[in-house]
């Protein structure tokens, strides 16, 4: 399963980092607390959050996450989008809330395993 697959299956908007759509996804983590994500997310995870500032990219880059998915139609701040493009780690956006989106992601990622 790659990032492009979840974009297509869930109709997500690609806000930035389009060059990373072939990154492999192996799981996910949902949280808006940065230290929680730092401590518990893993390499190749998709991260579901409502945080839109540049620090989400610092974490995605350090943890080598597959992609970030923003909920409720949120968009990344300009400097976050810029780093996402540079590093090739996509920031996606969904109209749904974290609960619904996480449920769907969980299902399609596990089906692919």
């Amino acid at each position, binding site marked *: 399963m790659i990032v492009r697959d979840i974009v297509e299956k869930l109709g997500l908007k690609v806000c930035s980092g389009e060059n990373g759509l072939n990154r492999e996804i192996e799981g996910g983590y949902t949280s808006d607390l940065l230290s929680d994500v730092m401590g518990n997310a893993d390499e190749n995870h998709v991260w579901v959050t409502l945080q839109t500032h540049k620090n989400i990219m610092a974490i995605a880059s350090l*943890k080598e996450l597959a992609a970030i998915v923003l909920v409720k139609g949120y968009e990344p701040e300009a400097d976050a989008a810029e780093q996402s493009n540079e590093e090739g780690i996509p920031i996606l956006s969904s109209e749904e809330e974290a609960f619904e989106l996480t449920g769907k992601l969980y299902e399609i990622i596990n089906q692919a395993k």
Partner: protein
Amino acid sequence: MEFKFTIEGGNFSKAGSASSEVKKILKQLNVNPKIIKRTVVSLYEAEVNVVAHAFEGNMNVDIDTDKIVVKIEDKGPGIPDIDQAMQEGYSTATPQVREMGFGAGMGLPNIKRNSDQMNITSKVDVGTEVEIINYLG
């Protein structure tokens, strides 16, 4: 091998950049990926603590054949009660900082879990030093 990076208090847009530089160096040196991951988590948390809680600081990295020793020292308010600060959930972060998703009180516990040795010394109204040691073996 020794490296030194500066950390700016209050500058969240640069938070994590010193840790990111160290990660690049460790990758170049072909350090075991598991040890890189643990080290990166602990360095990031210590770096962000300087940004969120102190005025300015440095990250001093010493990479040896058998271990990585990193000292993060800052000028800042210091920590009056280190045992309390180490407790998961304890945080003095401001409302603005919490709104950004910092301030869960999980940073120092993350460092503890992701280092082989962690030493904190602090002086109120002077500053804090966090030493993180990870063995390469």
